[in-house]
């Protein structure tokens, strides 16, 4: 049985969509059912995705902007008349799974809307998720519920902003880092 079928059987209604690009399979699950789904994928005897390769954050802001730019004809009507559809979730988090037994790979994706930026941490399943989740917290500003030590990883504490967001300029916002030494603090 091919991987796509097996994943669908394992996740049942939790699999919102299953896509394939260049032979890689991506399955989208609801953010609330993330930990359950990953556990199911890990324990299912036909799948055994027992190794977490990486956790990846994606900001889709520019994709929405481009879509708006393309449909110029539609924009000519006054914008007030349009029924305001809920905006598509801005962020995505991708979990790269690997089965050590069969060497199959699977990507599990969740969508994170801008108004609810809290996701359950998967460090309880794989400790390997620890730094990648800290990195996403640092560079995208997404919170992970249940992470043992959620703090900035690559940028320094006290840095404002999240550099990998698409609305953060490439050249930065002119931040400079000034080290405050302990003695100075006392004074």
């Amino acid at each position, binding site marked *: 049985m091919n991987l796509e079928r097996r994943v669908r059987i394992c996740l049942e209604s939790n699999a919102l969509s299953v896509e394939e*690009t260049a032979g890689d399979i991506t399955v989208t699950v609801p953010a609330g059912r993330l930990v359950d789904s990953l556990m199911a994928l890990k324990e299912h005897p036909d799948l055994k995705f027992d190794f977490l390769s990486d956790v990846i954050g994606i900001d889709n802001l*520019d994709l929405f902007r481009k879509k708006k730019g393309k449909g110029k004809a539609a924009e000519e009507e006054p914008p007030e008349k349009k029924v305001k559809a809920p905006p598509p979730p801005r962020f995505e988090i991708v979990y790269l799974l690997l089965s050590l037994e069969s060497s199959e790979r699977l990507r599990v994706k969740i969508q994170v809307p801008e108004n609810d930026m809290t996701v359950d941490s998967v460090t309880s399943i794989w400790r*390997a998720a620890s730094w990648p989740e800290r990195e996403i917290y640092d560079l995208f500003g997404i919170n992970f519920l249940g992470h043992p030590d959620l703090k900035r990883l*690559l940028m320094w504490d006290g840095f404002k902003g999240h550099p990998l967001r698409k609305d953060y300029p490439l050249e930065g916002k002119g931040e400079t880092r000034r080290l405050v030494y302990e003695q100075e603090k006392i004074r």
Partner: protein
Amino acid sequence: MTAESQCRIYPEAINEPEPSGDYVHINIGPSHPAMHGTLRIITTTDGESVINAEPEIGYLHRGVEKLGENLNYTQFIPLTDRLNYCSAAANNVAYEMTVEKLMGLEVPEKAQLIRIILMELARIADHQVCVGILGVDLGAFTPFLYLFIQREEIYEIFEKTNGTRLTNTFGRIGGVDTDLPEDFGPMWNKLRDGIRKANDETDRLLTHNRIFMDRAIGVTPFSAEDALNWGFTGPCLRACGVKRDLRRDEPYYMYDSFQFKIPTGENGDVFDRYMVRMIEMEESVKIIDQAYEMYRQMPEDAPLMARVPKIIKPPAGEVYHAIESPNGELGFFIKSDGTSNPYRIKIRPPCYMIYQAFPELVQGEMIADLIACLSSLNIIAGELDR
């Protein structure tokens, strides 16, 4: 592997101090002679034993992923050199393969062989640095020099191939730009003997050296279960006894047609990591021999590049591809939106995953063993911080 019974003259006496509760914080790095690159470890110590060691990273963060979003696909290749600068060719190929997978390009066989040869040379160079510096950190300076003479010879080959030594910017999307130099055969014959001689000398100076064995065997052991939970890959995982190598398990190019062994350890300690790297160097030599033999049978005018459009615009989609780099699974995740710039690039550096387990690895060990552990993991700040 040498039996554990040979090590540890004083088994328990060294490592189990009475906790006094009187802890001292020692800040090692980010600029410290024993730190490789710009790593910082905040250690809490009780006497000489480590209670906790918390790594802080980001001192070499250059925002490679953000830069990549603003460059086109070809312009990103030089940035991949700066990830693991000890084996730049492997990074280049890993990135190029990912873009080729996204575009559905098939690289010509001759180009594949050239890539394999240079990647394996890079692997040898990387392992030589790691083993050499492990020796230096444990007080053995001589093997470092023997190994670095041979590393220099490897760089001579790189230089003759495309004019660069450390940061290769090797290959293009869809193939390679330059053929191997005409006198690669004699150069490789000389280098092969040199590598084997240097490895033999290192082996004799380190492997059965009483001081080295005491400092390496049984130091920071790690179980296979923990290693997999923490996302270990590469030599550090194989040292724990897991026989996993992407060249064998998810073969790319012609790796499945080569004969080579995958060494594994037992305890995952410093000594096993060292031994795995030493054996892998010899296996890489064998792979290069076989690949060069196949390369010689190729017609001279065989193509080096696939048919690639002038402007590289992969179709929209997401792709992940990983290769077995010298340090482990090096993967690139690319999200394309159909334009000439990648929408998002995520690099999965192998030592990023390994380094996050560092507190667990060194807890309860001596400070001097912390240094030994760090060098045996081969943490490269360039790929760690990106």
